[in-house]
C-alpha cells in the first residue's frame, strides 16, 4: 500500500526550515549510514578507522555543501546520486580534508560502526575481487534495502509496544525474522496456546504494518513520487517475475 505523499527529505532539505532540515538529515543518516560505510570499506578498500572517518565526514559534507538540495529527482534515483557523491567524496578526500577542519564544526553522529563491521563479515561481495560497477550498484542497493527493513522492523517493534501488541511482534519475530524455515503457524499456536487463526491474523496485521512503515520510510527518502514507486517495486521485488 503506498502511503499518501509526505514531505520527503528532499523537500525538507530545500524548505529552508532548520527543524525540517535536521529531521531530513536524521532520516537520511538512519537509512544510509550503514550502506555508505560498507560501500566505502569494500568499494574503496579502506581500513576500519579510515572508513568510519570518511562516512562521518561524508554526511558532514552533505550538510555543509547542501548536497541534498542540489539533488534533481528527474536525473537519477536518490540512492544512485548518494553513491556517486560518496565516490566523488572519497576520490577528493585529500582535497576535502585540506578544506575541512577535522573535528571542527563538522557534524558527527553517534554511529554503531562496530555492528556494521560485524555485518560486513557476511558481505556477499568479495573484497579481493575486482567488482564491476553493476555488482557495486547491486551491493549498495542490497545494503540499502537491509538498512531500510531493519529500521522498519524497529519502528514496528515500537509501534506494537505502544499498542500493547508485544505478542504480535514476538510472533512476527519468530516467524518472519528468525530465519527458521521449519517453523509453522501450528507450532506458534501451540507455543503461545492460542488458536491458529489468531496467529494468522496477528501475522497479517504485523506484515501489513511492516509494509506500511517501510513504504512510509521509503517515501521520505525518495525525491519524487515516480522514484518512490520505482524504488518500492525494487524493494518489494514486484518486478522480479
Amino acid at each position, binding site marked *: 500500500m503506498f502511503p499518501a505523499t509526505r514531505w520527503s527529505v528532499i523537500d525538507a532539505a530545500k524548505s529552508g526550515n532548520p527543524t525540517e532540515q535536521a529531521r531530513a538529515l536524521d532520516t537520511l543518516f538512519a537509512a544510509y549510514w550503514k550502506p555508505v560505510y560498507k560501500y566505502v570499506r569494500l568499494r574503496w578498500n579502506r581500513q576500519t578507522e579510515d572508513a568510519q572517518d570518511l562516512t562521518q565526514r561524508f554526511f558532514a559534507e552533505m550538510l555543509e555543501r547542501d548536497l541534498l538540495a542540489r539533488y534533481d529527482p528527474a536525473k537519477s534515483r536518490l540512492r544512485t546520486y548518494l553513491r556517486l557523491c560518496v565516490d566523488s567524496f572519497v576520490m577528493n578526500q585529500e582535497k576535502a580534508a585540506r578544506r575541512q577542519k577535522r573535528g571542527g564544526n563538522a557534524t558527527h553522529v553517534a554511529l554503531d560502526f562496530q555492528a556494521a563491521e560485524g555485518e560486513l563479515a557476511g558481505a556477499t561481495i568479495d573484497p579481493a575481487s575486482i567488482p564491476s560497477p553493476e555488482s557495486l550498484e547491486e551491493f549498495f542497493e542490497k545494503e540499502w534495502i537491509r538498512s531500510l527493513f531493519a529500521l522498519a522492523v524497529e519502528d514496528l517493534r515500537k509501534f506494537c509496544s505502544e499498542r500493547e501488541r508485544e505478542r504480535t511482534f514476538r510472533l512476527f519475530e519468530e516467524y518472519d525474522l528468525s530465519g527458521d524455515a521449519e517453523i509453522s503457524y501450528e507450532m506458534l499456536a501451540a507455543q503461545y496456546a492460542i488458536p491458529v487463526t489468531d496467529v494468522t491474523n496477528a501475522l497479517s*496485521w504485523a506484515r501489513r504494518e511492516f509494509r506500511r512503515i517501510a513504504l512510509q520510510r521509503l517515501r521520505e527518502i525518495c525525491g519524487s513520487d515516480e522514484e518512490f514507486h520505482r524504488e518500492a517495486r525494487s524493494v518489494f521485488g514486484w518486478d522480479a517475475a
Partner: protein
Amino acid sequence: MNFLSDKTVDRLRQNANLPDLSGTRYQLLERVARGGMGTVYAARDQTLDRRVALKVLDVAVADGDLALRLNREARVLALLEHPGIVPVHDVGTLGDGRVFYTMKFVEGQRLDKYIEAVASLPDRLRLFLRICDAVAFAHARGVLHRDLKPANVMVGAFGEVLVMDWGLAKILREPSFAASQDDPDATILHAPQASNASADGTRATQITGQGTVMGTPGYMSPEQARGDIAQVNERSDIFSLGAVLRFLSSNPEQSSRSKAWPPNRALEAICAKATESNPANRYAAVSDLSADVSRYLDGLPVSARKETIFDKALRVYRRHTVAILLIAAYLAIRILLLVFSRR
C-alpha cells in the same frame, strides 16, 4: 537494532507481499504464478470448501489505474460465461487495500507445455478449434482478448481448454441488456458496470490510450505493435490466433527428421491469411478461420488457398486413402486374374 541476514530480508519481503486475507472467506495456500499486474495464489474458499485461484494486485496504488484494470478484468470474465473461459467467482478489496478477484482453480498445464506431449497434428488442431470457440464467443459479446498466446491457454486435467488472462481485454461495446434479458445472471453481472462505463462504452481506450503498446511480441498484430489502438478490432485477435495456429502446427521434434510432419501448404495458407499484416486481408471473423481449419481436418479444400489439380488429387487421396487403396488392390487382383486366366 538486529542485523537482518539476506535470507531474512528475502523472507520478510516475500511475506510482506502476501495478501492479507483476514476478514475474508479465503485461506491462502500457495503462490501459483506472477503476471504483469499482480500475483495469482491458490486459496481455499472456506465457505464452500473448495480450491480457488486468487489474483491480487501487488500494490494498492493511489491513482487506482491498476485496480481499475483488475476490476475490469473480473467484469470481463463475468460477462463471458463459456466453457472455454475461466469463470470468475468473486471480486473485492482486501484489508490491505489491494484489489483481488477469485476464479476457478484450473489444474492443468499451459498450452505451450501441454502440446509437447501431443504428437498428432489433428489433435493439436482440435485444441485450436476449441480456443477459437471461446474467442468467437467473446467477440460475439463485444470483447477482444488482445493477448492471445499459448501461455494464456490452459488445458485442464480432463482435456478442457480454457482461455486465461483477460487483463488486456478491450470491451468494444457494452453488452445489450435486451440481448440478455433471458439470462437473469447476466443481468445481475452487467448491472454494476453501467455506472462505471463511459458514454461510448469503450473503457479500455481510457486505460489503453492511443500509442500504448500492449500484447506479446510474436503474437501481437502489427496494429497493436504500432500502438494504433483505433485500428485494433476482432481481426487483431485473429492475427494472434493465426500465430497460435502456426505454433501448434510446427513440428514437435525439430531435430528428429523421422517425426517431422511434411510441409502442409493448406495449413500454411491458413496461418498466412490469419496473420496478414493488412487487417483487411485477414479472415473477417474467428468462425471463418475455424471453419477453414475444420475443412482442412475433414480433407476439404480451404478458402485460404486455391488448389492446383495435383493438390486436389493429393487431398482426395489423403481423404480417401483406404478406399483408393482398396480399389487399387481390387483392380490389381482383377488384372492379375485376367492375365493368369488367359494363360
